[in-house]
């Protein structure tokens, strides 16, 4: 079962998660609006913002259909001169990549900051891509906090940088910082920008002729970004003590290095990097004093790769690419300890005794269970079938005891993949997707299937909420999904709304089976409120009633 969606419930005033520290920094920087789609580990940042949006003069904040629509709304805010924050998880930036990359070329007016939270170790994600690569690709500034205080400070700085250089600025968090709390000191807030439409609308029109000029302008500003990086306080020589081995840390890796520092005979010459583009002069200066550079970074070996191109070949560079540290999984103080050549600490002998795993599973009473039972029943007897599914709690249907789904790739892929499998000749083909994922990026795939009247059955698991991330509101309510589907052109006689309920499994199975037998497109919407969402809703209602009683 998830914790309450609104983590403010267990927030103490100054004990902020990295996620919340960025949100607070943005608010204090004079934020006027914020947009997001829920995704672990970024969700909590936006929930914090939403709680503040309720206050008078607070920023406008709203969950969006997906990360791309969120980013585009942010561009609109920037164009009329106000400060705006967009929040997403790392894979969300794949969805928003089009507006993001192009937003580097237009002349950002009101400060635009993208908070993107990466998930190394894949605690709740399908990959561990490193968003610093995107920032580098777009040629914009990326700030990478090492702790909660820096998360706050960098959020405030990011808006100034965005307006100064007329580019979007990326703040990159990782799960470990996004979801850990520490004391944060805040500074007096800055007022919001007045409404002030860009004086130069041409700088927002990416026709080839203007885009060429604007691209050149972005390239010309690069030396200024580099000079900022060389002088900013986030990139600093932490220790210049002499030694043949030097260390460069980025982001949270600095903490892991410092944790091991007391066990080293002497501190190593140490440069910390919290702002990109890389401060090349600082790096070269450190490299000139050592023979070996140890690179400690969370995520991809981005810094390590760059160093190989910019340092003399004589400098040995050790890190993830060199095989000293693992290329996959979350970085830890223990990895860093090993990389520093320190011996492992003693442990209890019985720590080695095996403990059987306890994987996550669907909540007791979850409506998805009934849908999976029905789906498995409906597929009984077919020699070969395929079930393409998607991202959400229902992805747990891949695990025993259900083993009811066969793919999970990216948001919305269930529908496109099912169409592909049907086009290739397989029958029956079932696509399984949740209501929020359908609204996020399933609708466009369904349009393709409508156009071709594809021989597939789409099963929408409508639990009325974004369940996996803790029960956020979907962009459209359940009641709007059927009209939306009919509006796309799905034949009404092949579109059914049924209940996902333990007592209605056979009815749902029969409907699915009948539609699998129909050689054309069909949609079955299995509806029942998420059990956890229902629990949270009733508890909130109880609380409201009690408060009313007290007031009355």
């Amino acid at each position, binding site marked *: *079962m*998830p*914790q309450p969606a609104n983590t403010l*419930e*267990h927030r*103490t005033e*100054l*004990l902020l*998660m990295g996620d919340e520290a960025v949100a607070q920094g943005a608010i204090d920087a004079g934020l006027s609006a914020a947009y997001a789609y829920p995704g*672990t*580990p970024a*969700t*909590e940042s936006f929930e914090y913002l939403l709680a503040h949006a309720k206050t008078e003069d607070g920023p406008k904040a709203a969950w969006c259909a997906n990360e791309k629509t969120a980013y585009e709304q942010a561009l609109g805010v920037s164009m009329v001169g106000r400060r705006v924050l967009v929040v997403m998880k790392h894979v969300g930036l794949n969805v928003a990549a089009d507006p993001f990359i192009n937003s580097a070329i237009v002349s950002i007016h009101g400060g635009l900051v993208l908070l993107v939270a990466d998930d190394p170790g894949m*605690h*709740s994600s399908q990959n561990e891509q490193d968003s610093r690569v995107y920032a580098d690709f777009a040629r914009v500034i990326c700030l990478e906090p090492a702790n909660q205080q820096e998360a706050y400070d960098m959020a405030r700085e990011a808006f100034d940088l965005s307006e100064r250089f007329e580019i979007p600025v990326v703040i990159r968090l990782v799960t*470990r*910082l996004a*979801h*850990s*709390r*520490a*004391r944060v000191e805040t500074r007096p807030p800055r007022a919001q920008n007045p409404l002030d439409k860009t004086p130069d609308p041409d700088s927002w029109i990416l026709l080839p002729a203007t885009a060429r000029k604007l691209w050149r302008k972005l390239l010309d500003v690069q030396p200024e970004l580099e000079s900022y990086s060389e002088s900013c306080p986030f990139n600093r020589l932490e220790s210049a003590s002499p030694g043949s081995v030097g260390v460069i840390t980025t982001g*949270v890796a*600095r*903490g*892991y290095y*410092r*944790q*091991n520092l007391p066990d080293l005979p002497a501190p190593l010459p140490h440069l910390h990097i919290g702002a990109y583009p890389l401060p090349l002069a600082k790096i070269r200066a450190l490299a000139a004093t050592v023979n070996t550079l140890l690179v400690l970074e969370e995520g991809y070996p981005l810094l390590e790769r760059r160093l190989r191109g910019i340092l003399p070949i004589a400098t040995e560079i050790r890190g993830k690419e060199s095989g000293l540290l693992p290329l996959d999984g979350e970085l*830890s*103080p*223990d990895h860093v*300890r090993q990389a520093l050549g320190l011996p*492992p*600490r*003693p*442990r*209890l002998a*019985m*720590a*080695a*005794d095996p*403990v*059987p*795993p*306890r*994987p*996550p*599973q*669907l*909540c007791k009473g979850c409506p998805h269970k009934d849908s999976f039972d029905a789906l498995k029943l409906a597929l009984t007897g077919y020699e070969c079938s395929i079930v393409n599914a998607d991202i959400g*709690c229902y*992805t*747990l249907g891949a695990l025993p005891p259900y083993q009811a789904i066969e793919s999970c790739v990216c948001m919305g892929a269930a529908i496109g993949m099912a169409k592909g499998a049907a086009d290739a000749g397989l029958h029956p083909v079932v696509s399984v997707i949740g209501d929020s994922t359908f609204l996020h990026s399933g609708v466009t795939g369904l349009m393709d299937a409508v156009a071709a009247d594809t021989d597939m059955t789409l099963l929408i698991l409508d639990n009325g909420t974004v369940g*996996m*991330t*803790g029960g956020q509101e979907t962009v459209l309510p359940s009641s709007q999904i059927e009209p939306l589907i009919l509006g796309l052109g799905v034949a009404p006689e092949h579109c059914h709304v049924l209940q996902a309920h333990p007592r209605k499994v056979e009815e749902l199975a029969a409907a699915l089976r009948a539609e699998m037998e129909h050689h054309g497109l069909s949609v079955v919407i299995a509806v029942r409120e998420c059990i956890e969402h229902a629990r949270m809703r009733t508890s909130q209602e109880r*609380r409201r009633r*009690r408060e009313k009683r007290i007031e009355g």
Partner: protein
Amino acid sequence: MKQDLVLAGVGGQGVVSLGVVIAAAAQREGYTVKLSEVHGMAQRGGSVMASLRIADAPIHGALIPAGTADFIVATEPLEGLRYLDLLSPEGTLVTASEPFTNMADYPPPEELRRRIDALPHAVVVDGLRLAREAGGVRAANIVIVGALSDFLPLDPKSIEDYIRERFAAKGSDIVELNLRAFRAGRESACPTPA
């Protein structure tokens, strides 16, 4: 002073809340705290692990290195045993006694008992039973907070104050229930001889 705590349990047992209560009390007493939480898919009925670090000096990372945790605090015994690799050889396991068996290959209770008894320092608390007696099983995590509190350099008053504040919105009955759970846990904690 430093106290590094690994918090373990099953998603839904209130592991994060347990950590927040101790973290808030420690912070109010002037300590530096760092609490690392879990969200998203990781918490859905599966193993959940959080870490809480308390110190009177700056804390550099949220993660607790292997072999250095002062406590493993568990709302369920198997989950307590899962993270022994992080526990210092001098560290203590504080765990609820009641198994949460939402898995097919859950080990027999006597094996768990044997493994816990083999630890140098372990405290086993009937979290669910004491919470039920206090008025509601949902406060089992607060019973564990109580059992742990005896070992921490914190004034039980600061923890009680925060419990009052935290549950205030849910009404005075819930506040009292949680205070009873906290005290029951605190009274029941008695370490096995080293």
